């Protein structure tokens, strides 16, 4: 769901870890444990590899020791902020077949874009590239779902204004969900750019708030003695 999915959809990321979104049920976790054992993958840092952490939204981190993937990081997640539950992601997935016949299941582009709305600087240019690439790959008669996706997710002022002015009726209906479309309809690029930055900042702040309790939990797992002493002092 990470760097390779971004490459597939049109952004470019040289990501050295491999991220997986998984279904955290018992049967699937048993299969995952077997695959990780084949890779001689060991958990690193915290949290431990237990379903409860996955279900609460944590990522579990592994490092592979198999010679064919030596030191490769694998990150597993089951729940992501603002992203639909796994069964919906699975229904919408893209399946890719590599030349050797290996099949890879990727998050759909709209789901990948949602997953990238984080507090990290590097994710935002990525979202912009992903949606731009999709926009430029359009055919002459885009589907209604595509137009809605561009209007809701484009982060490039000129393109957003182009879509809003070409599909004004749809854009007007979506203003309640994304108020900055108003600037796209009127073609005010300066205001649109300011509004896009404000939108990004708001979503980054939401991501930070979402992670605050999870981060505190990670800190307690990382430094249990420090938290025990703090508890005693209080």
């Amino acid at each position, binding site marked *: 769901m990470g760097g390779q999915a971004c*490459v597939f959809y049109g952004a470019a990321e040289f990501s*050295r870890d491999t991220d997986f979104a998984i279904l955290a049920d018992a049967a699937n976790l048993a299969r995952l444990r077997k695959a990780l054992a084949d890779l001689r993958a060991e958990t690193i840092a915290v949290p431990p590899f237990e379903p409860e952490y996955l279900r609460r939204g944590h990522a579990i981190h592994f490092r592979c020791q198999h010679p064919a993937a030596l*030191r490769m990081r694998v990150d597993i997640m089951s729940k992501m902020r603002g992203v639909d539950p796994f069964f919906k992601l699975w229904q919408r997935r893209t399946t890719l077949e590599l030349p050797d016949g290996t099949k890879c299941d990727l998050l759909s582009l709209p789901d990948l874009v949602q997953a990238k709305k984080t507090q990290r600087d590097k994710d935002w240019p990525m979202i912009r590239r992903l949606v731009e690439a999709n926009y430029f790959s359009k055919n002459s008669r885009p589907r209604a779902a595509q137009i809605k996706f561009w209007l809701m997710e484009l982060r490039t002022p000129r393109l957003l204004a*182009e879509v809003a002015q070409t599909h004004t009726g749809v854009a007007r209906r979506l203003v309640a969900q994304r108020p900055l479309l108003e600037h796209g309809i009127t073609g005010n690029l300066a205001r649109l750019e300011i509004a896009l930055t404000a939108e990004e900042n708001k979503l980054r702040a939401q991501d930070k708030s979402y992670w605050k309790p999870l981060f505190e939990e990670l800190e307690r797992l990382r430094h249990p003695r420090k938290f025990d002493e703090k508890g005693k002092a209080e």
Partner: protein
Amino acid sequence: MIQPEELVGDEWAEWYRLTPVQRWLESEKLWQTYLALGGSLDPEPDTQSPFFDARAPRPRPAHGRSGVRILRRGRV
């Protein structure tokens, strides 16, 4: 109609014009070159990630050096 070249330059426009499978295969070639040059699979520390732990020990390559090193540096 805005063209990709106007917006992102020739290099990105060319990348956008590849099919998803072509992009995937180009990325694989880059990986092979990177690994052939001795690049490590250890990810860069991601200091903005909620998972980042500044106090965690970082793995070192077995030979004690980074995968790629500068042998000669030109002056500005």
